[in-house]
């Protein structure tokens, strides 16, 4: 069930009505019923994977709660010893839960990729043997709900909060419907109390929710789906285009990806807000990033935070990394010696984030690209500082910040060649073509009008992107726009809803021939 479909809007409308007329004690059950309905309609039998994950993390939570509870049965001074006594059991529970979910995720998402990768090797040593391929359907938003659920188990292990003892309530946390398509990856202690809260109908929540969702639909339908036409035309057959047209296609892919993903998240957060639920932010104006590391802190924030808390910290502070640190401090010394283990852990995390995007050599290369640049910038930080000092560059000067933003955009732009090209080697060829054979006149000789969009569409995209950038610039400078809107009168507040709606009607829904509707991150 796509967010842009009429059936989704009907489901949301019905759920909102039933949610607020139902007895408050059972409001969470309405959300659960709507979530299961959403998943069953959109994913059919794959809803079983949701139950599987919910069951594994529910059982793990109860077991961890049992072991954690042992410390409360003894005097304070013995608690540490008791926790140590049960540490191995607790670790085993976490390990088993991670394996139970991530092995399944591997089979669903990566098995066929590795099977195809290793088949030539099998052919060589075992003639005629065939690695079986998986025909399992990829469940909707599988990595999102699995990451969110495993995060819950690790937090219970760390004693951050007690486990949820009501299976159905935990199931709702796992499958809350607005975030099942593309996240955000929420944390239990932030989301669960909101899901189970009892609420009255609130005008502000409804208004904020609709405003945010309308903004999301505008970004998705007017910008992203329109830009997708150019992207698909160029990327389906890049060999037919010059370097400048390929770059034009990749630029439109950047626009499409941002409109699609951030628009989808705005819809998700807007719909959740209708129920008074404030979901985690997933974007903080990534276009204003001053470095690639900064970009990844602003883009898909909840995935980055998940990786930081559950993978980067445990890895960087693990015993092997501690030993490595001791060796590098001794052998290399100085800042470089201290930073090498952290840089290695950073590289691994960005590599994993790359692979998380999909089972393909392109994503492995994408992870390598991001990991290498961020690691190199860490290792060379001292040199950069020395150069800046020598050239008397003021870090805070506006021109230097503009330079940093443009440099980051360029690095991200190059990375997008890798993720959108049909194959990794094609991406390399495309980059080569862009710089060696650009044929710049194609940008103004009418070639762009052969890519599936007319002049009016380009004008709509240009104006829409300018509106989006202006809004983001305002947010970057002054904070939340809704708070500024709130100070305005009733008319202005509702114009903020009606104008995007009108734009959608004129340039989105009415141009149904350009609508692709599916979200790119849905496949992740």
């Amino acid at each position, binding site marked *: 069930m796509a967010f842009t479909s009429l059936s989704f809007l009907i489901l949301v409308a019905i759920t909102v009505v039933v949610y607020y007329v139902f007895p408050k004690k059972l409001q969470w059950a309405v959300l659960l019923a709507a979530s299961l309905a959403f998943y069953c309609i959109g994913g059919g039998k794959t809803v079983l994977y949701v139950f599987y994950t919910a069951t594994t993390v529910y059982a793990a939570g109860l077991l961890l709660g049992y072991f954690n509870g042992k410390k409360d049965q003894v005097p304070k001074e013995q608690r540490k010893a008791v926790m140590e006594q049960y540490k191995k059991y607790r670790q085993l529970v976490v390990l088993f839960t991670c394996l139970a979910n991530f092995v399944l995720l591997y089979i669903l998402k990566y098995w066929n990729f590795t099977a195809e990768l290793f088949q030539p090797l099998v052919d060589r040593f075992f003639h005629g043997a065939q690695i079986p391929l998986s025909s399992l359907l990829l469940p909707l938003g599988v990595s999102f709900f699995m990451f969110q659920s495993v995060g819950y188990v690790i937090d219970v292990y*760390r*004693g951050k909060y007690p486990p949820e003892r009501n299976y159905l309530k935990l199931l709702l946390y796992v499958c809350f419907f607005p975030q099942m398509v593309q996240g955000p990856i929420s944390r239990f202690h932030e989301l669960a109390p909101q899901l189970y809260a009892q609420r009255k109908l609130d005008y502000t929540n409804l208004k904020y929710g609709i405003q945010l969702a309308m903004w999301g639909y505008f970004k998705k339908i007017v910008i992203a789906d329109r830009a997708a036409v150019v992207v698909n035309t160029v990327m389906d057959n890049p060999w037919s285009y010059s370097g400048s047209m390929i770059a034009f296609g990749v630029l439109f892919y950047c626009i499409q990806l941002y409109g699609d993903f951030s628009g989808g998240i705005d819809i998700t957060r807007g719909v959740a807000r209708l129920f008074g639920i404030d979901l985690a932010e997933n974007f903080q104006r990534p276009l204003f990033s001053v470095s690639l*590391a900064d970009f990844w*802190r602003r883009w898909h924030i909840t995935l980055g935070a998940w990786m*930081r*808390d559950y993978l*980067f*910290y*445990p890895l*960087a*502070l693990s015993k092997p*990394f*501690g030993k490595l*640190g*001791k060796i590098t*401090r001794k052998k290399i010394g100085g*800042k470089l010696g*201290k*930073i090498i*283990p*952290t840089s290695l*852990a*950073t590289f691994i995390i960005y590599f994993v984030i790359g692979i998380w995007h999909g089972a393909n050599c392109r994503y492995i290369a994408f992870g390598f690209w991001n990991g290498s640049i961020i690691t190199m910038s*860490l290792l060379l930080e001292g040199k950069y500082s020395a150069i800046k000092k020598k050239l008397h560059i003021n870090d805070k000067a506006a021109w230097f910040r503009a330079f940093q933003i443009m440099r980051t955009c360029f690095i991200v732009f190059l990375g997008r060649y890798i993720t959108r090209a049909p194959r990794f080697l094609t991406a390399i060829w495309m980059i080569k073509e862009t710089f060696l054979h650009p044929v710049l006149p194609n940008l103004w000789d009418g070639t762009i009008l052969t890519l599936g969009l007319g002049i009016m569409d380009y004008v709509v995209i240009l104006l829409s992107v300018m509106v989006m950038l202006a809004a983001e610039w305002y947010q970057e400078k002054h904070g939340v726009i809704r708070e500024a809107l709130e100070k305005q009168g009733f008319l202005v507040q509702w114009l903020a809803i009606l104008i995007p709606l009108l734009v959608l009607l004129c340039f989105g829904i009415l141009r149904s021939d350009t609508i692709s509707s599916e979200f790119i991150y849905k496949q992740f």
Partner: protein
Amino acid sequence: MKEQLMQILTECCPDIDFETEVALIDDGILESLDIVMIVSEIKDVLDVEITVDDLVPENFNSVDQILALVEARKS
């Protein structure tokens, strides 16, 4: 102990004024990479065992909080 800690902090993050900042995490001044470097140094130089469970904002927002964590783990 505080002098040693201050030395570690200023060596790891020379651009941060640890004397005055009291919202190092909440204001996004200390990033995850800085935290890992600081913790690795504390473990190595001060011989204190700090685990992943200790990496919460309440322990790293100011020098005093970091010092309290180190002293708690040392005892």
